[in-house]
């Protein structure tokens, strides 16, 4: 109160305001350099190309988990549909990858003919190659822009964004909240997956899009190198995504969305248009999910409708819950830990467990373990793995900004203790 009239204190540097972000970005940079030095493509080769891809994919999953944390952990919207946006991002980039690569192959094979091929012949050739598996030989309208990388890149952002905007507008305007909203988002994912499963959806039905790991025109570049390119891109996207989310959740906007999470009616009576805020957050996170998917599927090599199944979005929520929602690094820790463990267990590397004459095969039992961990975290440690960081932080002496406690202030002052 004494300094009420004094000018506002200068903003402290970012590193002091958000120490966790600085630590996170430093660790991410170290990790990226470390993997590069150990990878086959550039370094010693201690890390195989396929594992580089696994790590790159994990970074993309961390990015979509960030989006999930923003929409659920901060804004309180338990969306069980964000993996649909992730899948759409993958389809959008996959269409160009598949088209452009097939085009090169078709042009090469037609070059042997005595007459130069007409554009129609080329188009028919590409369509035959891509849609042969579903018994079609013409391009469906949805592929109208597949020849253009910029347009398909725009689709990575615009299609998830528009879908989220329309869906969110309908749902939030009717004040659908809580479990009903979650069910609605599940219905959306299910509808999308079922649609894509159909052969006449124009996206090759249950075959999905494949061969996405091959970059058109770059066949001479070994996968060991391509995998590193995507790994770097994923790390950069995660870093940028982290900074973006940090910007959104800190400051007054973050204050408003956390208030919406805790008591949205009260926020309305303060004059904030709650529905608009929800729509902004829902759409923004859908776009982030789309970008994450566009980086993930070229590393996975294939995207098919099973990736959009409702269960995928539920897993996403489980990762964020286990990592600790409501803190950005929690989401990253959860996604990284659970998805890497999942790869390990379901990849058959984990040794079988022999208990009382029964053999426990992790490939089958991993989901049970994951389910139990989810229940345990929900009941026993709602802060998740991220809560462990609090234990470390609590051990540091409080920051007194140089002021001493004074003769009669031996005990911790409250505002220091819960800073």
């Amino acid at each position, binding site marked *: 109160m004494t300094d009420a009239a004094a000018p506002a204190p200068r903003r402290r540097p970012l590193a002091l305001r958000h120490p966790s972000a600085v630590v996170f970005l430093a660790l991410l940079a170290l990790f990226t350099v470390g993997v590069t030095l150990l990878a086959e493509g550039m370094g010693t080769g201690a890390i195989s190309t396929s594992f580089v891809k696994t790590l790159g994919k994990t970074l993309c999953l961390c990015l979509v988990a960030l989006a999930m944390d923003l929409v659920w952990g901060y804004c309180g919207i338990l969306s069980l549909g964000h993996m649909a946006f992730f899948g759409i991002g993958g389809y959008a980039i996959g269409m160009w990858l598949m088209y452009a690569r097939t085009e090169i192959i078709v042009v090469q094979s037609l070059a042997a003919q005595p007459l130069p091929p007409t554009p129609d012949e080329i188009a028919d050739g590409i369509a035959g190659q891509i849609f042969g598996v579903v018994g079609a030989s013409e391009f469906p309208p949805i592929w109208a822009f597949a020849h253009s990388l910029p347009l398909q890149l725009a689709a990575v952002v615009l299609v998830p964004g528009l879908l989220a905007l329309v869906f969110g507008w309908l749902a939030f305007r009717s004040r659908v909240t809580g479990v009903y909203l979650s069910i609605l988002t599940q219905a959306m994912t299910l509808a999308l997956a079922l649609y894509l499963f159909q052969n006449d959806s124009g996206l090759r039905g249950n075959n999905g899009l494949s061969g996405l790991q091959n970059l058109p025109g770059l066949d001479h570049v070994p996968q060991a190198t391509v995998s590193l390119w995507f790994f770097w891109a994923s790390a950069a996207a995660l870093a940028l995504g982290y900074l973006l989310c940090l910007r959104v959740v800190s400051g007054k906007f973050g204050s408003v969305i956390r208030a919406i999470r805790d008591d949205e009616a009260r926020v309305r009576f303060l004059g904030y248009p709650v529905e*608009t805020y929800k729509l902004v957050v829902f759409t923004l996170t859908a776009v982030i999910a789309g970008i994450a998917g566009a980086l993930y599927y070229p590393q996975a090599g294939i995207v098919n409708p099973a990736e959009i199944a409702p269960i995928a979005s539920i897993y996403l929520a489980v990762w964020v819950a286990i990592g600790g929602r409501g803190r950005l690094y929690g989401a990253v820790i959860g996604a990284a830990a659970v998805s890497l463990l999942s790869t390990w267990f379901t990849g058959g590397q984990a040794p079988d467990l022999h208990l009382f004459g029964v053999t426990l095969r992790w490939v089958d039992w991993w989901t049970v373990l994951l389910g139990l961990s989810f229940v345990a975290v929900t009941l026993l440690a709602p802060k998740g793995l991220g809560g462990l960081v609090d234990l470390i932080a609590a051990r540091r002496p409080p920051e007194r900004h140089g002021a001493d406690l004074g003769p009669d202030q031996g005990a911790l002052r409250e505002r220091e203790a819960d800073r």
Partner: protein
Amino acid sequence: MSALLEVSGVSVSFDGFRAIDNLTFAIGAAELRAVIGPNGAGKTTFMDIVTGKTRPDRGRVVWGETSRDLTALSESRIAQLGIGRKFQRPTVFEDQSVADNLMLALKKDRGPLAVLAFRPSAADRARIADLADEIGLAGALDRKAGELSHGQKQWLEIGMLLAQDPRLLLVDEPAAGMTPAERAHTADLLIEAARTRAVVVVEHDMEFVRRLGCRVTVLHEGSVLAEGSIDRVTSDARVIEVYLGR
């Protein structure tokens, strides 16, 4: 004096039960008004209707010089027009600091883009500090609202109301859970606030109502039973029968 808020012929039923029955009520631009009445009389429901939480089945709620009908507007639009509300249970954002709670309430552009770009100015900080002083929470600005005592939460909510700088304040049982000294302070604050704006106070504590020294409206079964000075309504036979006598 022309009215700032005029409620006329408003009725609302919940599953056939008439909570508000042909209610008519008006308040001027700089007036303090106490609303009393037995439990279930419809006092909170009346505030719900004015703030857009409950839509009336019939009747009009007319606001301001432009005579806007509030019944068609959303809660946030109504709040932006200048109607602030304090709830019966203290509802502050427990997970956020006292300063953040006040900053949320501070009268500013409420749109998402403006909020995203918002940086508190020196004047904003000074205003928050002044408000905190006024509500006795100057030393608690960095504390989480959830750690405050019940009375302090009530204060914080009053502070948030003042930060909103509304033209009409609806205050539901502000003195509940406060010590006698705190009640006196609350009454003073409300009287002070009513110099420049309209203030409606719902309260059961007659001592408190007397201290406000204003016109009193008695609600009973969803409509106005009596209205006038505190001495007049407390001597009204019907008021004694339904409310004071028990």
